[in-house]
């Protein structure tokens, strides 16, 4: 069965600092991988996706993620965090792009 692990439940960073959120997936030689963000009271907004090709993918709001098959990882990064980035971030894996399996989420807090 698929599983997606986000090892960090909470992360706090200072505004302007760099950010890396970890994600490990367990299924598939060629996974479909996604990062979504959920602000309080809001739905899930797609940040970026990886289907194939270039292992470094760019997303919205200045985020990027790198697919590393050897580590079964798809970590999300941002070089300089803004206070508005405070939210919960979910990594997800698609099985044939149909059912998504989500990680448990990482709640990001940004210190001024």
């Amino acid at each position, binding site marked *: 069965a698929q599983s997606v692990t986000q090892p960090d439940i909470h992360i706090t960073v200072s505004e302007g600092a760099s950010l890396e959120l970890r994600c490990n997936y367990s299924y598939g030689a060629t996974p*479909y991988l*996604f990062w*979504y963000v959920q602000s309080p009271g*809001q*739905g*899930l*907004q*797609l940040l970026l*996706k990886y*289907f194939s090709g270039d292992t470094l993918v760019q997303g919205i709001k200045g985020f990027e993620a790198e697919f590393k098959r050897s580590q079964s990882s798809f970590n999300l990064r941002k070089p300089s965090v803004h206070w508005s980035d405070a939210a919960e971030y*979910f990594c*997800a894996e*698609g099985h*044939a*792009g*149909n*059912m*998504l*399996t*989500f*990680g*448990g*989420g990482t709640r990001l807090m940004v210190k001024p």
Partner: protein
Amino acid sequence: EPEVTQTPSHQVTQMGQEVILRCVPISNHLYFYWYRQILGQKVEFLVSFYNNEISEKSEIFDDQFSVERPDGSNFTLKIRSTKLEDSAMYFCASSLRVDYEQYFGPGTRLTVT
């Protein structure tokens, strides 16, 4: 920018009552999904729907649940007889193709008392 919409934003119902959660997917999308998120837990897949049929469903999606696309724009999730443990945020999503990204609505918070 096209978006998925859901109504109502919050529904309170008594145990044993039927509820219908409504979604309007993005207009040219062909694949539709329901997920739920119990407070403090992971987002969980419930069901996917294509060409007026369920294409995949999880163990959660038992006989108490049903989905329907009653017309060309709406996609509904019905819970026949709600239980306390059905209290959750329910998200609708849609995608253009089965191997494309899914776009989520804002969710309906269902509270069963």
